[in-house]
């Protein structure tokens, strides 16, 4: 007898189990609405989703287990499923009912999984999704007949249209009253299990489905050896373009809006450190969180659209072999590509990678991709120090250096992925499963909801933390202050304040560590400031060199060129230092937002700590080699 009957106040707990593309997530969303809570299972990169059943008379908690084809655990997500089903996962109460979610068009495979679930002897129900597809393809499947044969409740639904949901809402409230199967023949081997499946299918009269001709026709083009690669390239260029340039107007507007808000607050309040904290710390900090939103919204609209239409799986299918060379999967491609705009949405996009091992590897190497925040740093240093000449009359040297920096980042990402696969993540088994779902028209409502969920998840899970760290960094850079001196100009005051700040002390403290790279304490301060976001170093350098504004690009460039080390009388900045600094930015994980998102997405601070130290080590070594080699060659 179930405990739920004895203690009616305890919430009923049911879990959805099914293959990755069985429509489980769509079903879960319609069952739980906006009550879903997304987290991680302790210690693994496996997402845990739980929600409360809507329209229910009693409390029913619905757990959406990771998609799986098998209930014997080898990979982290399969192990979670196995342990939760057996009631052996710490912190997960026993289940009152198991709901097998089976795509009706892949009935035989689904029944194979159901057979394994029935072995557990817990109340089990079967939900057949996409039954409209079966009819559209000339098939016949009667849930009632199947229910009579199996001895358990069987319901057919069309999750994305809400068809057949009412009875499901009803039965989910009382799993203790579900009918239980008759005695099942033993099915220890796959052969025996599938003999049982074939028997059931024969008895229920499930006929073979006609091929999905529309999907086949489209696939002949989209997966064509030549055309397919061309279409893939085109879609990726479009996706890249959308986050790289379409998001810019909105980001600029957010930037300008918060700038104006800060100025308005400054004008309205008396000049004091508290006002500075409010305007440059809090208001600018909120702006620095919201500025990520346009890219996240655009990228996720794109990804969810491609996913709902059915192209995401095809894109992964096309590029899988290439990504497989470094131990990643086809699904790693879109997240990594997105990282060219910004690692924050890119790392979030890694959720589309089903196997935890490849997802983790993708997340860890993401920050190496040259994000748009590095561009202002590269532009400044290259414009200031790389000669404006052309090679062979056509190739600009400055552009070539910039291209080299981009390639260095991408190559390091791929090599690091291969390295991770053969070291830290070695021995963690992983399987490759992929299905090419039928093409479908997307629905605006579902698309909108998915994008909204992504944006909200970012704001709730990462936004607060990013805000907090940016305020801490602001304080480091602003306090303590220099004694006021009316004789100084505004730019000189800013410089004096920075030189007196805690960050400047830190910059001086780390000078011995960065001196071998050719960096002085002023660059040290810039490096500390760039922890907030990489491009901040440009503003900090402007402040250190008392340039009136960070937008005074020529002024800053000339100030950098003219800076002389008081001890040696030689210029501080030269081409070797500029190149070394660029290389430092290629490698180092100087972005607290990325660190925070990485921690949130992997469910642990261990991984971002590892990535940070690994990347810092590479940055130091890379800059050291660059500085020494280029000094020797040029000096």
């Amino acid at each position, binding site marked *: 007898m179930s405990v739920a009957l004895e203690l009616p106040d305890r919430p009923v707990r049911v879990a959805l189990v099914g293959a990755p593309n069985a429509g489980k997530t769509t079903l879960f969303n319609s069952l739980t609405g906006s009550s879903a809570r997304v987290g991680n299972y302790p210690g693994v990169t496996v997402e845990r989703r739980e929600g409360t059943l809507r329209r229910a008379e009693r409390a029913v908690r619905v757990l959406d287990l990771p998609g799986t*084809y098998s209930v014997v655990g080898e990979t982290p997500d399969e192990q979670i499923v196995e342990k939760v089903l057996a009631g052996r996962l710490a912190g997960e109460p026993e289940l009152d009912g198991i709901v097998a979610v089976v795509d009706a068009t892949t009935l035989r*495979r689904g029944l194979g*999984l159901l057979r394994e679930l029935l072995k557990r002897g817990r109340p089990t129900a079967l939900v057949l999704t996409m039954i409209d597809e079966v009819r559209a393809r000339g098939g016949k499947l009667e849930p009632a007949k199947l229910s009579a044969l199996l001895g358990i409740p069987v319901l057919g639904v069309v999750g994305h249209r809400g068809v057949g949901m009412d009875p499901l809402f009803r039965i989910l409230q009382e799993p203790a009253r579900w009918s239980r199967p008759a005695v099942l023949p033993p099915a220890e081997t796959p052969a025996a299990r*599938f003999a049982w499946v074939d028997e059931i299918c024969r008895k229920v009269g499930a006929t073979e489905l006609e091929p999905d001709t529309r999907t086949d026709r489209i696939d002949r083009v989209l*997966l*064509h050896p030549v055309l397919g690669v061309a279409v893939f390239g085109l879609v990726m260029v479009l996706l890249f373009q959308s986050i790289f340039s379409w998001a810019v107007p909105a980001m600029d507007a957010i930037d300008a809006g918060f700038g104006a808000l800060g100025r308005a607050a400054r004008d309205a309040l008396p000049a004091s450190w508290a006002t500075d904290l409010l305007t440059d710390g809090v208001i600018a900090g909120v702006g620095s969180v919201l500025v990520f939103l346009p890219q996240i919204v655009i990228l996720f609209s794109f990804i969810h659209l491609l996913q709902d239409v059915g192209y995401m799986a095809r894109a992964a*299918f*096309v590029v899988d072999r290439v990504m497989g060379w470094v131990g990643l999967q086809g699904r790693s491609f879109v997240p990594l590509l997105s990282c060219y705009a910004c690692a924050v949405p890119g790392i979030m996009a890694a959720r589309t990678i089903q196997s935890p091992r490849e997802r983790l590897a993708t997340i860890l190497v993401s920050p190496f991709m040259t994000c748009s925040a590095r561009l202002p740093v590269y532009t400044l240093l290259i414009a200031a120090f790389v000669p404006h000449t052309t090679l062979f009359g056509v190739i600009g040297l400055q552009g070539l250096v910039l291209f080299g920096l981009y390639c260095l980042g991408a190559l390091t990402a791929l090599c690091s992925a291969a390295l991770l696969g053969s070291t830290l993540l070695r021995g963690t088994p992983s399987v490759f*499963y992929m299905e090419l779902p039928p093409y479908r028209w997307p629905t605006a409502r579902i698309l909108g909801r998915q994008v909204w969920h992504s944006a909200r998840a970012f704001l709730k899970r990462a936004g607060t933390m990013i805000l907090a760290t940016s305020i801490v960094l602001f304080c480091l850079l602003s306090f303590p202050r220099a004694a006021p001196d009316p004789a100084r100009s505004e730019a000189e005051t800013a410089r004096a304040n920075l030189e007196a700040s805690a960050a400047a002390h830190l910059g001086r403290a780390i000078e011995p560590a960065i001196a071998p790279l050719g960096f002085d304490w002023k660059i040290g301060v810039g490096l500390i400031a760039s922890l907030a976001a990489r491009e901040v170093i440009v503003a900090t350098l402007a402040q250190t060199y008392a340039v009136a504004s960070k937008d005074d690009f020529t002024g800053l460039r000339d100030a950098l060129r003219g800076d002389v080390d008081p001890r040696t009388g030689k210029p501080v900045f030269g081409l070797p230092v500029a190149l070394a600094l660029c290389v430092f930015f290629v490698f180092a994980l100087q972005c607290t937002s990325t660190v925070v998102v990485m921690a949130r997405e992997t469910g642990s601070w261990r991984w971002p700590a590892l990535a940070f130290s690994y990347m810092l080590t590479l940055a130091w070594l890379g800059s050291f080699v660059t500085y020494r080699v280029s000094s020797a060659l040029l000096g």
Partner: protein
Amino acid sequence: MRAELRNEPYPEAIPLEALQVGVAATIAPPEPGREIPRRLGDLGFVPGTELWIVRRAPFGDPIELEIRGYRMCLRAEQIANLRVTPRGDAP
């Protein structure tokens, strides 16, 4: 006759990897000392089952195949132990 002498019950069996696109085949028992991986068993890859390769990805791998009325993609490395007997006709 030769097959009997060499004690090979399925002389025509070839690696699934070598099966041509669009040709129906039957899964043969694995070679002695080898097994069909449990995961493939869970997906219904059982000796005697019919399957055919729908397509290969543009770069040759993975392959999409149809078995038991559904399609799925697998990498060549996963199906390395699978041997099939081509039926020589379209599915």
